């Protein structure tokens, strides 16, 4: 055995890899032709892409934006001498507004648009809490009451009074807590706003409006439709179901057996039945369950059922967030003397909700896609509208353009939301806080 010792005197510089390893060739070799099997796959994939594009692109390229009816389209396409036909975009030109807004009065469409812009502003501090100041959360809070008013219209007093409900409850709690004890005053504090909303808001707002008329034109929910309806149902249902979901999740995590099983029962029931059956309940049964004479319109009923539906799913998401919190947080809160509700509000929920945002976004995407089911009970969401557009003699027989347009709308919104939620998930993982 020779002498093993060795010392390098001058260090080797870094060299470039062999040409076959890098650059375009290296990339191709690595990613497309790294073996005979892969090469075959690549060829098949290329052929597949070619076939698909060759079938779709000529059809897509079709200058029919101005056509006023299907037969006009056919004429244009025949003139061009296209063999396999082409898309008829005239229907989109003519109906895109309807597909977006349904029958919402044209001169009032700034209202839903404003609402959705407001929605983004309101969500910004929640979704991108690093870039936007926390003060914007005040707007978010106010927006909760402004948005429905903007959409449905009516006297400005209604949202103000609605917002006053929780305040009343809070005041009542403050005064009563020392008189009748905590539990009773909590119950009262919950009941007061509910009763206030149910029985007083309407007459009061009318009364005030009689004195100081200040409001915007009422738009009946019957006129809501199209993509706007999907978004609106989704947003309202998620917003309210966040509250219900938190309650259900806390209930499910609670040590109180009855509360726990009630929550579990509700959650499992809702998650165990298809949404469409719940929508049938909305359309056929909900009025039967309500006191005789109650009659809220079908869109409200659908929103109620969608909210219940979403809240079961949100509850599960939030339960995951709660479970992800270390026990130490609960103990530290206890040791500092915070009671259950304060601990939840100040310590647990802020953290749990933050962890849950990706899950909430996913739930929203799911719900948003599911809002198309309302077409089955006769509401005019985009899919429902395709039916009524096709009932128009001009567009009788048009299919792909409408479905394609709707699919594109949904794809863009759902895809960007899912990207956001992936981004957030990654950020939460690396956020070592």
């Amino acid at each position: 055995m020779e002498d093993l010792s060795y010392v390098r005197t001058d260090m080797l510089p870094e060299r470039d890899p062999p040409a076959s390893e890098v650059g375009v060739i290296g990339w191709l070799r690595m990613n497309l032709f790294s073996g005979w099997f892969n090469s075959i796959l690549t060829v098949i994939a290329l052929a597949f892409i070619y076939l698909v594009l060759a079938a779709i692109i000529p059809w897509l390229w079709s200058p029919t934006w101005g056509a006023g009816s299907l037969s006009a389209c056919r004429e244009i396409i025949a003139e061009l001498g296209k063999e396999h036909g082409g898309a008829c975009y005239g229907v989109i030109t003519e109906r895109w507004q309807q597909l977006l807004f349904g029958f919402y009065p044209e001169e009032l469409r700034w209202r839903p648009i404003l609402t959705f812009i407001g929605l983004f502003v309101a969500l910004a501090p929640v979704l991108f809490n690093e870039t936007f100041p926390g003060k914007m959360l005040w707007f978010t809070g106010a927006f909760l009451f402004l948005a429905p008013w903007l959409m449905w219209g009516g006297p400005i007093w209604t949202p103000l009074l609605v917002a006053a409900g929780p305040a009343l409850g809070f005041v009542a709690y403050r005064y009563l807590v020392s008189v009748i004890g905590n539990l009773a005053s909590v119950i009262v504090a919950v009941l007061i706003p509910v009763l206030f909303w149910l029985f007083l808001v309407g007459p009061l707002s009318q009364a005030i409006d009689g004195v100081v008329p200040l409001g915007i034109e009422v738009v009946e929910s019957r006129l809501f439709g199209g993509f706007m309806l999907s978004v609106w149902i989704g947003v309202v249902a998620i917003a309210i179901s966040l509250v219900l979901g938190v309650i259900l999740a806390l209930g499910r995590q609670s040590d109180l057996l009855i509360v726990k099983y009630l929550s579990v029962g509700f959650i499992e029931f809702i998650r165990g039945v298809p949404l469409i059956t719940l929508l049938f309940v909305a359309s056929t049964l909900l009025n039967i369950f309500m006191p005789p004479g109650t009659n809220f319109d079908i869109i409200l009923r659908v929103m109620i059922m969608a909210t219940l539906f979403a809240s079961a799913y949100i509850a599960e998401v939030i339960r995951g967030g709660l479970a992800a919190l270390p026990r130490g947080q609960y103990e530290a809160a206890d040791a500092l003397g915070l009671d259950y509700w304060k601990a939840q509000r100040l310590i647990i929920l802020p953290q749990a909700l933050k962890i849950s945002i990706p899950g909430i976004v996913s739930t929203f995407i799911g719900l948003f896609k599911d809002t198309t089911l309302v077409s089955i009970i006769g509401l005019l969401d985009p899919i429902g509208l395709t039916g009524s557009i096709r009932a128009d003699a001009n567009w009788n027989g048009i299919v792909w353009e409408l479905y394609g347009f709707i699919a594109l709308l949904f794809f863009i919104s759902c895809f960007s939301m899912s990207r956001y939620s992936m981004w957030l998930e990654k950020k939460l993982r690396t956020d070592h806080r």
Partner: protein
Amino acid sequence: ATLDDVQARGSLKCGSNSGLTGFAAPDANGHWEGFDVAVCRAVAAAVLGDPEAVEFVPTTPKTRFTALASGEVDILVRNTTWTLTRDVDLKFTFTGVNYYDGQGFIVPKALGVSSAKELDGATVCIQTGTTTELNLADFFRTNNISYEPVPIETNAEAQQQYLAGACDTYTTDASGLAATRASFENPADHAILPEIISKEPLGPLVRHGDDEWADIVRWTLNALVAAEEFGITSTNIEELASGTDNPEINRILGTEGTMGEMLGLEADWAMKAIAAGGNYGEIFEKNIGESTPIGLARGLNAQWKDGGLQYAPPFR
């Protein structure tokens, strides 16, 4: 009560077909027109004085009854057949018949079929939740021939599948078939088979339990029919309203008696109803009559005097 609700709301909610040319369909401006629509407008005119004060709620055969039962609409005028079950078990009140119809079949002429009995083994498009669906089953069963049903929700879908050849024939009320055929690109290529396999008296209906409201609807329809019988038309109604020698006409138009008051309406309720779209005959001719592309003959729907079944009870 429904009347109070309608008056408080200032508009009538009317369940209509989601789109059947000639019976109920929105025109290019979104204004609803048609034979059934005209009944709604007449009721609105009678109750509110304004034929335009109607909100139309499009329904499918499947959703129509829940819409009415749950109070989503005040009245359903949607080529709905009057049957015992619907009247008694489903708890609705039919307030008359605005079109006496029967179920028929439409086939492409190229199919070479001339009688429904030759349809053995055919694929049949059928709207679910209708009487026609049940009649169809009975018809093929009693004739001991087979068929393949393709259940469908709306007339538009049926039309699409039928035209694409996904079903050999489409069956529904003969009037509906005529209306559907009229909207085809080439109506002449399709034939309605001669067999009428059922009775389909179509009429407006309301919920059980509000007889006052049912009376209003019933007598509005009767007023339209009676108006034709007595020659009251939209052109001469102004003139007749100033008083005539015929006491029945006077009673109808409210210049005599207190019929409006009895119904809880203005005295000139019937006049407004008739003025809204004309009398029964005018409505028929304008929307589905022989001068329209739909081209239906009066047939059973002629006045009783002309050998038809339209027969308004006396206004007395």
